[in-house]
């Protein structure tokens, strides 16, 4: 308890020593020089890796994966160099324009890269975690005949993700945005011969596209109102936007963020995306890509500054998703799906935080710690599956801690981090989010703060459930499995991430002071505390402990059946069916869409084309009838001449009479 107190005090002190308020950036970026001029190398390295593997064909089968790992590792090393160089700069921004990309009169989009504290942080996360997961995949995919392609797609993903965070315009961001979407599609459907996996990949792509349309419309709005899509131009003029336009842009950006980050109402693709190989789930669908939405909003804060409405909606979406993810996470028996819903829920925390004025840095802090502990847990889950013939049903696990001690230890580190066990990574970041949420005061503060606190308890529940069902209790294995620990090539990356799960929170808050580092990009604000930080810490920890205790009672004290019980509450039934979001999607969009398509095909064939055929038939028929008049009989010609003459006379008479 004394440790806990001292940590809380430290937190308070750090907050107190912060400068009162840092303004948001105004788009004034300095040109890169020195080693930062080579910023494009960061993207080029993994891209070249992907190109070599894809174009090289089968002859790269044996050494290709090492090229991919090398490319990602080199990018990480250069990322470190760039990071160090950035620290040495006064303004801590370095921008480099590579070439004129889309130049049409007023619309001038330059392809350029921007390294600042925010993007530099992401670069290290992406290349660092990316490198570890590349290495892990060497073991995980060792027996897959198509592993060359797997590594090529991984490299493609890293390159696209780096474009996303380094691009200096919304259009460049969008290029990376869809690039990671493509990589995600390719990797989810990596085992494309399984129809369900192909469907999951398609679903992910389509739902992301819905979000992408939002992002595109936001870009259109920026161009129509400000005449530019470069970050510098947009942020510089952000204050000149009317509140209405800013709200519209903010909401459209949010739509994009919801698609990519699996937030309500576009969240249902993320659990299905677990069809991809587990390293993919760890890298793309937990640590990096799905947090791109948080990046987008953090990057666009100068726009949200103009519209409190848009900001509030971001927070509300975050809070809703936080609840949905956690509730559904409590009932699934598929270990990867539990982790997936947990990701959905944790990103909800980030959305909630990024919407709080001055707390965006805390959202990024949670993003980083989450990157460590969730990647660690996914890789551990992958290690479990590796030893259990790729089974994912936790009801068929149990008692694995003895067979897989290293995996168990790593998973435990991640587990303690996510439930916010004192001094583990999540403890710092989650506490700070709840604290800032409460500090907003008023209804908003209490609503967001209490949601965060309650869900901390639910998180404790479902994560403990997963741990107990997997590693403790009796063995409920199917007969054919022989669980074993994974090879070092897999466990070493897990251990590195486990260490991160333990220390990253403490380091980023008390040693590296991430919040001050990020303040020039995302701003910071000092506000009065509604509750003393120490009180918040105690409450959150107590609620989490309660969740853990309830799960202990439910799953450790009672036997776990090998099939899911049927007699359960209505909420559980609903949660098992994803709270009916998929059914809703199917009945409101998919079915009517299919009917509409079929109806239109019919209309096109019978209606529009039918009209054309009708016209042709009419002309043909009419000509046929006309032809019958030309029968060659003088008497009938005489008759028609007479008829015509009579008509003319009659017409003349009518005209006369009328006049």
């Amino acid at each position, binding site marked *: 308890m004394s440790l806990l107190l001292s940590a809380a005090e430290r937190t308070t002190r750090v907050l107190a020593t912060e400068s009162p308020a840092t303004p948001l950036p105004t788009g004034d970026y300095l040109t890169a020089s020195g080693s930062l001029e080579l910023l494009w190398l960061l993207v080029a390295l993994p891209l070249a890796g992907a190109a070599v593997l894809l174009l090289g064909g089968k002859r790269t089968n044996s050494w290709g994966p090492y090229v991919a790992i090398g490319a990602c590792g080199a990018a990480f090393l250069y990322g470190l160099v760039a990071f160090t160089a950035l620290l040495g700069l006064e303004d801590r921004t370095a921008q480099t324009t590579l070439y004129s990309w889309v130049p049409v009169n007023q619309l001038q989009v330059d392809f350029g890269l921007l390294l600042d504290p925010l993007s530099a942080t992401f670069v290290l996360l992406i290349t660092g975690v990316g490198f570890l997961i590349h290495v892990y995949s060497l073991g995980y995919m060792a027996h897959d005949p198509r592993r060359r392609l797997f590594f090529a797609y991984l490299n493609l993903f890293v390159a696209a993700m780096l474009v996303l965070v380094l691009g200096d315009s919304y259009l460049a961001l969008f290029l990376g945005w869809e690039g990671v979407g493509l990589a995600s599609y390719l990797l989810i459907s990596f085992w494309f011969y399984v129809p369900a996996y192909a469907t999951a990949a398609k679903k992910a792509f389509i739902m992301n596209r819905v979000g992408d349309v939002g992002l595109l419309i936001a870009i259109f709005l920026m161009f129509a109102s400000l005449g530019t899509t470069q970050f510098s131009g947009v942020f510089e003029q952000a204050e000149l936007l009317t509140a209405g336009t800013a709200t519209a842009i903010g909401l459209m950006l949010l739509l994009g963020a919801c698609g990519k980050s699996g937030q309500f109402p576009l969240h249902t693709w993320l659990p299905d995306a677990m069809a991809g190989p587990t390293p993919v789930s760890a890298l793309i669908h937990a640590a990096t890509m799905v947090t791109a939405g948080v990046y987008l909003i953090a990057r666009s804060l100068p726009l949200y500054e103009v519209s409190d409405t848009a900001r509030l909606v971001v927070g509300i979406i975050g809070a809703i998703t936080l609840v949905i993810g956690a509730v559904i996470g409590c009932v699934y028996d598929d270990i990867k799906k539990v982790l997936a819903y947990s990701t959905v829920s944790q990103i909800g925390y980030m959305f909630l935080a990024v919407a709080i004025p001055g707390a965006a840095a805390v959202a990024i802090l949670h993003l980083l710690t989450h990157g460590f502990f969730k990647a660690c847990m996914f890789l551990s889950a992958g290690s479990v599956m590796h030893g259990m013939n790729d089974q994912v049903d936790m009801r068929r696990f149990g008692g694995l801690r003895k067979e897989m001690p290293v995996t168990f230890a790593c998973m435990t580190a991640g587990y303690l981090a996510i439930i916010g066990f004192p001094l583990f990574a999540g403890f710092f970041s989650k506490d700070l989010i709840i604290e800032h949420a409460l500090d907003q005061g008023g209804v908003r503060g209490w609503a967001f703060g209490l949601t965060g606190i309650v869900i901390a308890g639910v998180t404790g529940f479902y994560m403990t459930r997963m741990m107990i069902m997997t590693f403790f209790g009796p063995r409920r294995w199917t007969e054919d499995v022989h669980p074993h620990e994974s090879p070092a090539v897999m466990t070493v990356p897990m251990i590195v991430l486990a260490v991160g799960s333990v220390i990253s929170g403490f380091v980023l808050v008390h040693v590296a002071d991430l919040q001050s580092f990020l303040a020039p990009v995302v701003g910071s604000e000092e506000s009065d505390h509604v509750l003393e930080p120490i009180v918040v810490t105690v409450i959150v920890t107590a609620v989490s402990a309660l969740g853990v205790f309830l799960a202990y009672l439910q799953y450790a004290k009672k036997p776990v059946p090998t099939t899911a019980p049927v007699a359960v509450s209505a909420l559980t039934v609903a949660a098992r069916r994803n709270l009916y979001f998929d059914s809703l999607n199917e009945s409101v969009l998919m079915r009517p869409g299919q009917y509409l398509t079929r109806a239109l095909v019919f209309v096109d064939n019978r209606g529009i084309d039918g009209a054309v055929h009708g016209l042709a038939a009419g002309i*043909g028929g009419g000509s046929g009838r006309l032809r019958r008049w030309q029968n060659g009989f003088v008497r009938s010609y005489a008759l028609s001449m007479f008829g015509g003459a009579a008509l003319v006379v009659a017409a003349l008479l009518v005209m006369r009479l009328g006049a």
Partner: protein
Amino acid sequence: MSDTPWLTILMVVPLVGALVVAALPKGRDLLAKQVALLTSLVVLALTIVMCAAFEPTGDRFQFAQAYDWIPAFGVQYAVGVDGIALVLIALTAVLVPVVLLASWYDADPEAESTAGVARGAAARTMDSDQAHATSPDIGPLVESAARSGGATAVLERPAQDAANPATVPPAEPARRRSVKTFFALLLVLETMMIGVFAATDVFLFYVFFEAMLIPMYFLIGSYGGPRRSYAAVKFLLYSLVGGLLMLAAVIGLYVVSASQGEGTFAFEQLTELEISTPVQIALFSGFFIAFAIKAPLFPFHTWLPDAGAEAPVGGAVLLVGILDKVGTFGFLRYCLPLFPEASRILGPYVIVLCVIGILYGALLAMGQKDLKRLVSYTSVAHFGFIGLGVFAFTSQAQTGAVLYMVNHGLSTGALFLVIGFLIVRGRSRMTADYSGVANVAPILAGTFLIAGLSSLALPGLSTFISEFLVLIGTYTRYPVAAVLSALGIILAALYILLAYQRTMQGPLRLPSHLGERMRDLNLREVLAVAPLLALMIFLGFYPKPLTDVITPAVDATMQDAGVSDPEPTQGRAAAPTR
């Protein structure tokens, strides 16, 4: 350099090549193919040299030439290119060799299996060539022209339901088709296509516009699928109706010019005319309907799925990739500058048609069971985007529209080619006959995916730039239309990924004659499709070479039409009234 009659040379070279090919003795099929390919490569090389000589900031029409043709009516042989025509001619020059290479065995499929002993194969087909020396299927045309009831007879729906044509037989053994005629027709078509873009005399344009139909009619009617006669006649009748309306409008233009001085067909003089609004609307409509049929815009589109599905793959690529562009090119070159007032008045209505076309084409594409019809319907949606860009009246949207014409040619061309490769193997056009092709033919599946991604405008591929420009340019003037059209990009993802999933992913199931094996793309096929994919990626990251020549031409068009870009509504550049 500027004295070189580049455009005339470009038109003459393929024509000479066609004559040589046609004059070759029977049985020299391989030689005919080689000559045709060589000719098209020469045209490509010449085009590249010409493009290098083009000065983006120079005169509006470059490489211009004008000679009197029919002096009594002021008709001239006048050619010249602006940036818009230039890029479309370049597209033509790129696509023709690609099509020739990809269609190498399309006229004589049996030769492919014996390609190793090509001479022997050529010798064997010799007899049959003589038997049907000039057997293009002109029957329906003659009949329809001769009999008054012909249209009905020909347009009567064949017994097979359009949505479910039976599987395509590979080639009817009883009917051998002349190989060299096929290649000669493609080269003649190239001449016509270059001519139609190069003409700066409206009458000359009209002549090329109509003459283009002839080689395409024979390509569809003689070398197409089982319902080729129906499709060819439908294509011809549709086009002729449009052409007739345009002819009336061309004559009308001449009358107007004659009433205001000397009668002329020269484009630049015609743009100077003062035409009253009602006359503008009438003449605009004549041109517009002709172009809307050609493009085709909704609701003039129903000939395209039939023609696109029945045409041989190479013909389909040129039909959708280039011939149809004449329609959208015509909007930009003729409708807007000649009838500015009518364009401004009717523009919003056209935009409504385009938005409907985008969504309608995409939904219909989703409902197709025939791969070639699917691609044809995606083109209806894409032409909606192009029309939207033209009539949005902003330089971004119009530059995007021109870029779209080029990119659509590349991406749909690639898509048609890959589907053609699949059909050659599986002898069926139906989605339902394939599953899990990626299991056995990963390169084929990969190229299908890239071509498909380009069709759904994935950033990084050139189609994205054009779609983005069209939408962002439209947004500044018609936000609602832009937002509705943007929904089309979700539908595009659906129809492409659905088709990909149905045919390429999932467990392996192939048409029965293939069993468990399917040949992956061979070197010739890769060589045909790779340049298109490479261009798509290159132009996706670096479209500047194209935008540099297109934008000045678009600016000139905007000036002719009397419109300028809207200014940003807020921010520093906004009007000071805020």
